[in-house]
């Protein structure tokens, strides 16, 4: 069996597979490496095997094949030593509705054999504070909104200082405001130096929050790397420029002079829609000085091109996913 290669990998799996009793191969030969200190986005459409992988990592279910190491130790065998150093949110929060938020945390803390009961009060208070639930701590958990439940679930993962946080779709079912809150919480936790393993079926979430990502489809790993590397896979790192104008042929000529390639023009009710790829050093457009988009637009206007709309579409992970699998992201199942 392969030794865990990188000493600084907090999660390392080799050929990890799971076939459920129904005969379904939910995870198929997964080789995953999560570097310490990363915010690792585990991306895949619904049913691609993310939760199954997490259950195996945490020792909730047995792998049918392969091996998994967490924090350098084999799972599930070393769970007793490893799990106290790992905080987890799996498939959404689960709470005792008849207990207050604080008592829910007391209960989960009591279940941890290495947690010191003498410091429980302080640690529970700190966790509640961290997720912004101090004021609602005395309310029964069944009266919590979904966002509050989600935050209480994260608080349970924060009862001890953790080396790794495993968060399975922590924004699932939340409204945009709730999503923002959870995402900024995740970012803040990562800034404290905790490695975060975040699963999601939302591409923009991974792009917003994560440094690294692995993409799953049908139980298999499609690719893994830094988010920048993966984005670059899609269209060699270029963004597409879109110009809507009644003067299509002039626009194509001017853009070509400015180094835009792969130009196409299509008729539309608004006139012609001209698209093309920006020169590669133009990315990311917000940060690099690169071919100045305002200048490009000015050149078009100076050449008499009447511009109705002008914009840049960034390559998304969805494009990458489609490029790599030949499938739409949402329909994969």
């Amino acid at each position, binding site marked *: 069996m392969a030794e865990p290669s990188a000493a600084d990998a907090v999660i390392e799996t080799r050929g990890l597979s799971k076939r459920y009793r129904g005969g379904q191969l939910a995870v198929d030969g997964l080789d995953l490496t999560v570097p310490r200190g990363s915010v690792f986005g585990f991306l895949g459409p619904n049913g691609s095997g993310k939760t199954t992988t997490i259950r195996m990592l945490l*020792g*909730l279910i047995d792998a049918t094949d392969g091996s998994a190491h967490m924090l350098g130790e084999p799972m599930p*065998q070393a769970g007793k030593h490893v*799990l106290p150093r790992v905080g987890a949110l799996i498939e959404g929060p689960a709470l005792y509705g008849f207990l207050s938020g604080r008592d829910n945390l007391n209960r989960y803390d009591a279940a941890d*054999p290495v947690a010191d009961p003498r410091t429980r009060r302080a640690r529970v208070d700190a966790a509640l504070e961290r997720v912004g639930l101090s004021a609602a701590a005395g309310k029964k958990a069944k009266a919590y909104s979904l966002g509050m439940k989600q935050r209480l679930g994260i608080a349970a993962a924060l009862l001890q200082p953790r080396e790794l946080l495993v968060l399975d779709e922590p924004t699932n079912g939340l409204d945009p405001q709730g999503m923002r809150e959870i995402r900024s919480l995740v970012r803040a936790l990562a800034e404290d130096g905790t490695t975060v393993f975040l699963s999601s079926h939302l591409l923009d979430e991974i792009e917003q929050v994560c440094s690294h990502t692995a993409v799953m489809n049908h139980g298999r790993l499609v690719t893994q790397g830094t988010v920048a590397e993966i984005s670059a896979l899609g269209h060699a790192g270029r963004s597409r420029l879109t110009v809507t104008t009644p003067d299509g042929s002039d626009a194509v000529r001017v853009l070509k002079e400015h180094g835009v390639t792969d130009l196409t023009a299509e008729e539309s009710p608004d006139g012609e829609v001209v698209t093309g790829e920006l020169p590669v050093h133009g990315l990311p457009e917000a940060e690099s000085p690169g071919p100045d988009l305002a200048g490009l637009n000015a050149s078009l206007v100076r050449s008499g091109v009447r511009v109705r709309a002008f914009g840049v579409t960034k390559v998304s992970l969805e494009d990458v996913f489609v490029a790599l699998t030949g499938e739409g992201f949402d329909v994969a199942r």
Partner: protein
Amino acid sequence: MSHADLVGRDGPDGTRTAVPVPASAAQAGRERRRQWPLFRSELLTTFRRWRTLALLGVLAVVPVLVGIAVRIETAGGGSAGGDGGGGPAFISQITNNGLFLVFTSLAATLPFFLPMTVGVIAGDSVAGEANAGTLRYLLVAPAGRTRLLLVKFGSVMVFCLAATLVVAAFALATGALLFPVGEVTLLSGTTVPFSEGLLRALAIALAVAVSLTGLAALGLFISTLTNSGIAAMAATVGLLLMVQIVDTVPQLHAAHPYLFPHYWLSFADLLRDPVYWDELLKNLGLQGLYTAVFGSAAWARFTTRDITA
């Protein structure tokens, strides 16, 4: 690869924490201290539920109702069951001595009421947590599968004792309020002071609680089989009813000594002088056997099971 490894401390291999002999006492102390917080939390969680309190409330009402019924019936001068007719054991003695309401109430609730409440609590113990999803969080805490199962069994046992004591305590209070109390005439004809009668009542309550352990282990095992608390409760209670019926069918008498409720009413033998131990001990052995068999089965199932709920 077995989940038992996850809680290797408790596992049958015992390899991980096989400690040198001199350290074992200290080790055992530390282990015990680590069990306590979870056990305490389990008790708090169980006894703070509305459902638990409602079950205990129903059990408390039974002796009060029996007491009042006997009181009303005998108010006209007659003596309840004085003709030696039906009704639960000891009911005819209540008017002479309120303490007998304790024995009557235990005899009346033991066949169904008491064990049904135990079936509900035991059946729900693991399956209910799986149903709510809280089980996965306890396990990644990590509670340890063997440790969690032991704690669950312990808390069901505490419930058995609490349920029995609730019946006994309310019966004693009602009996003392509605009827005279005093010296107790035992089944063997001997008369003992009220204080000894009280002690024997306590011993009977303990014997009844112990009688319920086999069912508790059975319920716990069923509870590890499913993710539905309701299904586990219904199955446990259903099985109880079935076994109780089988126990009354004469044609099946060969099986009777192996049915867990068969010696339940042996607690009455504690009211003899000298105490007639034969069936009491048989009951104890039978409960021990059921606990061993279904406790092991629950452990084997729970430590290897995929937790996907």
